């Protein structure tokens, strides 16, 4: 809006005193020389004394004496003398902050891993070995497990309670169970139980191999004693002595045999296949079970051939090499399939 002298026609002293434009005119110096206020004064002479008095008031306020302090340099020197100390502290604080920030992050990671560890210890834990791999590990009770290829062991980590230690096996594993019982005082919590292939194996401290492949469960006891129960009926099926093997294909087919050489049982752990007049079919089954290949035998008559001896079985090629040499066949790997001809 354009400023006009008419707007100021009825202005009194207080109105001028309060008028932003008037204040700034007075502030700038001499409002008497401002053409606009001259016009206002000429058109409305009665405003002139008001303007004058308002201007005086404004000037009285604007021109207040400034309270002088002579202490500026001294004051600055006091401030300046503090600056190095402040800088030092700032640096310390900065380092501390960085440190605590990092420490905080580290702590967070540690706490997270601890809680994850706790969680994993509370819940179920599964250890496994893929095709062509083996897995050696120690359970929380210090029992040692060797897991063969294509196998897994699941367990619940609440072994601190008075319940027996329990594991669930798929595939093949060699157990070396730590004996935890105090002599002659066996409690429930001193038992170690393996669930596999529809049976429960109960031991205290022993070494044994469990193999659950193709619906056939084979248990070979190396040391100590082992009790076999039916998982659903809890009936005791067998009780093994060291050197005995137990084969189970359901309740109808139970067989206990003697195995004199424990090395035949644990050979797989040492990457060997021990053949003691074993059928080619058993070798092929082992290849399929442990390496995950489908084996096609073009000449099915070979299945009934029997082999003896020890085959290095660190990798598939070792086994195939032996088969080629002993059976005079050719082997061909195509994708997931091995053809023997």
């Amino acid at each position, binding site marked *: 809006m354009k400023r006009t002298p008419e707007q100021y026609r009825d202005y*009194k*002293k*207080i109105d001028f*005193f*309060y008028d932003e434009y008037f*204040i700034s005119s007075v*502030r700038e110096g*001499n409002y*008497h020389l401002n053409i606009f206020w001259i016009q206002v004064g000429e058109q409305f*002479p*009665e405003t*002139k*004394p*008001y303007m*004058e*008095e308002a*201007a*005086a*008031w*404004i*000037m*009285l*306020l*604007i*021109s*207040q*004496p*400034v*309270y*002088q*302090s002579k*202490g*500026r340099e001294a*004051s*600055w020197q*006091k*401030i*300046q003398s*503090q*600056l190095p100390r*402040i800088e030092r*502290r*700032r640096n310390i604080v900065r380092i501390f902050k960085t440190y605590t920030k990092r420490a905080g992050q580290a702590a967070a990671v540690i706490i997270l891993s601890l809680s994850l560890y706790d969680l994993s210890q509370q819940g179920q834990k599964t250890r496994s070995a893929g095709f062509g791999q083996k897995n050696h590990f120690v359970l929380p009770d210090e029992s040692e497990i060797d897991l063969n290829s294509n196998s897994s062991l699941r367990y619940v980590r609440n072994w601190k309670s008075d319940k027996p230690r329990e594991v669930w096996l798929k595939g093949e594993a060699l157990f070396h169970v730590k004996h935890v019982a105090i002599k002659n005082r066996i409690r429930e919590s001193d038992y170690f139980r393996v669930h596999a292939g529809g049976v429960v194996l109960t031991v205290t401290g022993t070494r044994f191999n469990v193999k659950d492949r193709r619906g056939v469960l084979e248990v070979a006891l190396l040391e100590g004693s082992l009790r076999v129960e039916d998982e659903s009926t809890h009936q005791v099926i067998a009780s093994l002595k060291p050197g005995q093997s137990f084969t189970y294909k359901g309740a109808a087919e139970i067989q206990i045999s003697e195995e004199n050489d424990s090395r035949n049982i644990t050979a797989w752990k040492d990457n060997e296949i021990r053949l003691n007049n074993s059928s080619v079919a058993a070798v092929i089954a082992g290849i399929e079970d442990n390496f995950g290949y489908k084996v096609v035998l073009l000449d099915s008559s070979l299945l009934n051939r029997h082999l003896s001896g020890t085959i290095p079985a660190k990798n598939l090629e070792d086994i195939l090499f032996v088969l080629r040499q002993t059976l005079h066949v050719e082997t061909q790997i195509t994708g997931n399939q091995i053809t023997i001809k």
Partner: protein
Amino acid sequence: MKDDLELWEEFRLGIESSFKSLFDSYYQQLFNYGHKFCVEDEVLEDSVQELFIKLWKNRERLNSTPSVKNYLFKAFRRVLFRKLAEQHRFSGIKAEFPFEIELAHDYTMISEERMRSLRAQLARALEKMSPRQREIIHLKFFEDMSYEEIARVMNLSPKSTYKLLYRAIDSLKEHMSPFNLLILLSLLKNMSN
């Protein structure tokens, strides 16, 4: 010559010479403003020093500011008030922080007598105001601050700042010269011109 905002930015980066320049340009202003609240130089010195030491300490956390003066006045006022509050606690006085305006002594555009009379009027009017009203008048006229700036310094909303100033101005009306006298004076002055 660098302006305040440049100096402020440089100070925030930790340049001591810029910090010193800010101190030099505002020391007197802050001291003068503080003197309206408190006549003890020592308290004012301490407050200014405390303010600047704090600024240096916290410089990285400070924001850029549209008005350095506004920022410093506000911060200084806060420091000073805390010091005064401490004093009050010791002395047991629970009073509003005072604010005294000292009007200019001589202003030669009009006659000495008239000036004296106007000055007395204004002084009386100011005396009747509350300390905070006087502070507004001072910030408005002497420090040439806008409402927004006054509001920021005094930690008030712009609306209540406006109200406070309006009431202050209103109270001035009571102390105006009688209308007739003004006319008379004006006529006299015009004749003398």
